[in-house]
C-alpha cells in the first residue's frame, strides 16, 4: 500500500484499510456531503443525468470486476443487465417488495451469468469474447420472444419502486436510492478486491498457469467472478427498469455491452475508481455534445445537426485517443494528478 509520507502501519489490518489516512476519510466525507446536497442545487434534468450515472457506475464496476480484475472479457454485459431488469420487473409486477425484487433480479442474473461463464474455463481472450457475444444474442432473442415472461415486443411496464410505503416517484427520491445502491456496489467490489477472492482474480488475470500452480482453482474462481459480476449487473438492470418504468428488448442490445466496455477502458481496467470515471465520462459525453450543439446553434444556425451527426464519430474518436494516449484510463491520470500535487513543487 502506497501511503502518504509519514504514514506507516504497524499491522496488516491497518494497512488494508479502504481509507488509510484521516485526510482521505474527511475528503470522502466531504464528497458524500456534496453528493447528498447536489440534488437540491441541481435542476431536475441534471439530477436525472446523475441518476443515469449512478446506474452506469454499478454496471461498469461489475464489468470491471469481471474483465478488469479477473481478465474474463465479456461482450454480453448489456444482456445481463436485461436479465436483471426483466427478473426484478416480473417480481415487482407480481407484488414482490422492491428490495426483494432487486435481490431476486441480481440472483437470477448471477445464475444466468454463471451458466454463460462455464466456457470460460477453456476459452480465453477473443474466444471468450465471442462466447459471451453469443450469450448476448441468445438473451436478446429470449427477451423478444419470452411471451408473458418478458412481455415480448411490447415490453414490461413497471411502477416506481417503493419501500415500506415510501414511493421513489421523483428524481430526487430516486437519486438517493440510486446513490445508496451505487455506493453499496462500489464498497462491495472494493472489499472483494482486497479479499482472497480479489487476489485470486488478479492472479488469474495476470497468468492463469501461475495462478493454478499456486493453488487457485481456476474454474471455481472464474465462475465466482462471473456470478458476482452478473449479480451486480442484474441489480443495475433492475434499477434501470424501475427507474425508467419500462423495459424492452431493444434497450439491452450489443450497443449497451459496448458502452460498458468503453466505460471501463476509458475509466481504467481493474480500478474501482476507474469504473466511476468511465461511467461519468460516457454518460456525460452525449450531454456535453448536445449542450455544445445547442450553444453553437445560437451563433451558427444549422451547425447543431452536424454536431449531432458527428456524435457517434466523436465517441469512436475519444475511444481511439484513450487507447493510444491513456491506455490505463482516467484512473491512471487521476493518480498522476495526485502524485503531482503530493510532490509539488518538486516534480522529480
Amino acid at each position, binding site marked *: 500500500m502506497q501511503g502518504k509520507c509519514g504514514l506507516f502501519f504497524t499491522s496488516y489490518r491497518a494497512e488494508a484499510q479502504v481509507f488509510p489516512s484521516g485526510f482521505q476519510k474527511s475528503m470522502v466525507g466531504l464528497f458524500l456531503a456534496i453528493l447528498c446536497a447536489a440534488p437540491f442545487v*441541481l*435542476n*431536475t*434534468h*441534471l439530477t*436525472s*443525468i446523475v441518476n*443515469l450515472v449512478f446506474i452506469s457506475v454499478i454496471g461498469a464496476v461489475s464489468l470491471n470486476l469481471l474483465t478488469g480484475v479477473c481478465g474474463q472479457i465479456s461482450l454480453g454485459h448489456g444482456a445481463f443487465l436485461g436479465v436483471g431488469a426483466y427478473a426484478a420487473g416480473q417480481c415487482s409486477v407480481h407484488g414482490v417488495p422492491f428490495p426483494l425484487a432487486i435481490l431476486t433480479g441480481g440472483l437470477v442474473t448471477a445464475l444466468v451469468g454463471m451458466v454463460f461463464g462455464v466456457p470460460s474455463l477453456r476459452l480465453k481472450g477473443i474466444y471468450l469474447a465471442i462466447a459471451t457475444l453469443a450469450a448476448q444474442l441468445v438473451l436478446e*432473442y429470449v427477451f*423478444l*420472444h419470452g411471451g408473458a415472461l418478458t412481455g*415480448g*415486443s*411490447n*415490453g414490461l*411496464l*413497471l*411502477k*416506481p419502486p417503493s419501500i415500506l410505503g415510501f414511493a421513489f*416517484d421523483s*428524481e*430526487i427520491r430516486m437519486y438517493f436510492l440510486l446513490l445508496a445502491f451505487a455506493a453499496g456496489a462500489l464498497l462491495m467490489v472494493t472489499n472483494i478486491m482486497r479479499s482472497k477472492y480479489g487476489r485470486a482474480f488478479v492472479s488469474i488475470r495476470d497468468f492463469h498457469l501461475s495462478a493454478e500452480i499456486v493453488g487457485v482453482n481456476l474454474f471455481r474462481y472464474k465462475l465466482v467472478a462471473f456470478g458476482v459480476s452478473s449479480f451486480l449487473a442484474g441489480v443495475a438492470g433492475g434499477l434501470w427498469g424501475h427507474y*425508467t*418504468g*419500462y423495459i*424492452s*428488448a*431493444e*434497450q439491452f442490445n450489443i*450497443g449497451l455491452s459496448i458502452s460498458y466496455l468503453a466505460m471501463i477502458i476509458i475509466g481504467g481496467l481493474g480500478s474501482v475508481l476507474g469504473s466511476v470515471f468511465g461511467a461519468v*465520462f460516457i*454518460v*456525460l*459525453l*452525449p*450531454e*456535453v455534445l*448536445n*449542450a*455544445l450543439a*445547442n*450553444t453553437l446553434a445560437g451563433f451558427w444556425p444549422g451547425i447543431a*445537426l452536424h454536431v*449531432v*451527426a458527428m*456524435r*457517434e464519430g466523436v465517441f469512436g474518436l475519444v475511444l481511439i*485517443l*484513450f487507447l493510444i*494516449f*491513456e491506455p490505463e484510463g*482516467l484512473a491512471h*491520470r487521476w493518480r*498522476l*494528478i495526485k502524485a503531482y500535487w503530493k510532490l509539488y513543487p518538486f516534480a522529480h
Partner: protein
Amino acid sequence: MRVGKIITAVCTLLLAGLVLTGCGGGEEKPAATSEKKAEPIRVGGLVDLSGPTSSVGAPYAEGLKGGVEYVNGLGGVNGRPIVFDLQDTAYKVQQGLSLYKKMVNTDHVVCIQGYGSAVTEALVPTLAKDKVPNLSASYSAHLTDPKVAPYNFFSAADYSTQCRAAIKYFKDGWTESRAPRIAFIYPDHPYGLAPIKGGKEYAKELGFEIVGEANVALNAIDATTELLPLKDAAPDYCWIGGTTPSTSVILKSAKNIGMNTTFFINIWGCDENLSKLAGADADGVYSNQAAAVYGQDVPGMKAIMEITGNQPQMTHYTRGFVSALVMAEGMKRALANGELTGESLKTALETLRDFDPMGLAPLISYFPDDHRPNMAVFLYTVKDGKLTFVKEQILERREDWLGH
C-alpha cells in the same frame, strides 16, 4: 506527457461546460403555461436524426418543422406562436429520456412530438406521471389503449389496423373460389412483430389460408434463403414488415428466385426511395400509407408545396406535417376551454371528431377510452417507379381490436 495534459484539460473543460450549461435552472414543475397573448407555446421534438432509423426520421422531423411553420404562418394558435425544440435521440432510450426530462422540467414544453418505438415506449409511464402528451410516429397498437398509455397519441392508424385494412382490401378483390393464401415476412424486432398477431388472426377470420412466414433482418443484404420455402408455399399475398432497405432486398431476392405473389408493405417499408433501391422489382407492390404523397391532389398539398418551395418531399414529411396540424388543433381547443397544459391538451385531443388535416391524411378522431386516430389506411401501388393512390380502405372500429 504533454498529450496527457491535453486530455486532462479537455476532460476538465467538458465537465466545466456541463456544469455551466446546467446553471440557471431550478426545480420546477412540468408545463403550465397561462393564457397570455403572444406567449409562445413550447413543444419538444424527440426524433432520431442520426441513429439507425434516421433515413426516415430526418424527413419526418422536417415535416414537423414544416407543420409548425405553417401554423405559425397563420398566426399561431390563438395568436400564440409555437416554439419547436427539435432534438436528436439517435434512437437511444437513455438519450431520449434525458432530453425529455430537460424539455419537460426545464423548458416546460406542453407536449412532445415523438418518433421511434424505443424512446416512445420507454416514455409511456413517465408521460402519464408528468401529464405530458406525446404525439409520436411509433404506431404500435398497444399505444392506442388509454388504459395502457393515457398520454400517447399518433395521427396514423396503428400497424395492426393498417395490416388488417390491406388484408380486407385484398379479400374484397378476391374472385377465385379457393381460399386466398397469405404469408408474412418481417424482421425479428419489436416493430416487425407488432402487427403480425393481429394480421394473422384477421386473415384467418376472413378465410385466408396462412401458408408461411419468414424472418428477414432489417440489415439483410440477401433474402433468398428465407424466401425459398415461401416460394414453394406459393402465397397469393405476402406481407412485408420492414424498412425500405430491407424491403428492397426482399423484392430483389423474390424476383431472383422467380417468386410470383402480390407484396404489400408496412408504412415504414415503402416510400419514394423504394423504387430507387429496387428498380423495376418494386413495380406492382402495394404500400400502406397514412398520408398523401408529394404533389397529390389534396387541399393541404398546396401549403406543403409553398413551405417546401416546390422541392419534393418524402411521404414521411407529410405525416410529420399532419402530426403538427393535429397538435395545433388540440391546442386551439384546449385554449378555448381555458388554460393550456399537458392535461388540458390531452382532454382537448380526445374531443377531436373526424378532424380533417386538409386531406393530407384520413380523418382523425380520438376518444377518452380509445386513442385510435382512425381505422383507415391509404393504399398505394408502385407504378413506373411512382407511388400511385389506389384506395382509402376503412375498417369498422371494433372494440376487440383496441390495443392489439
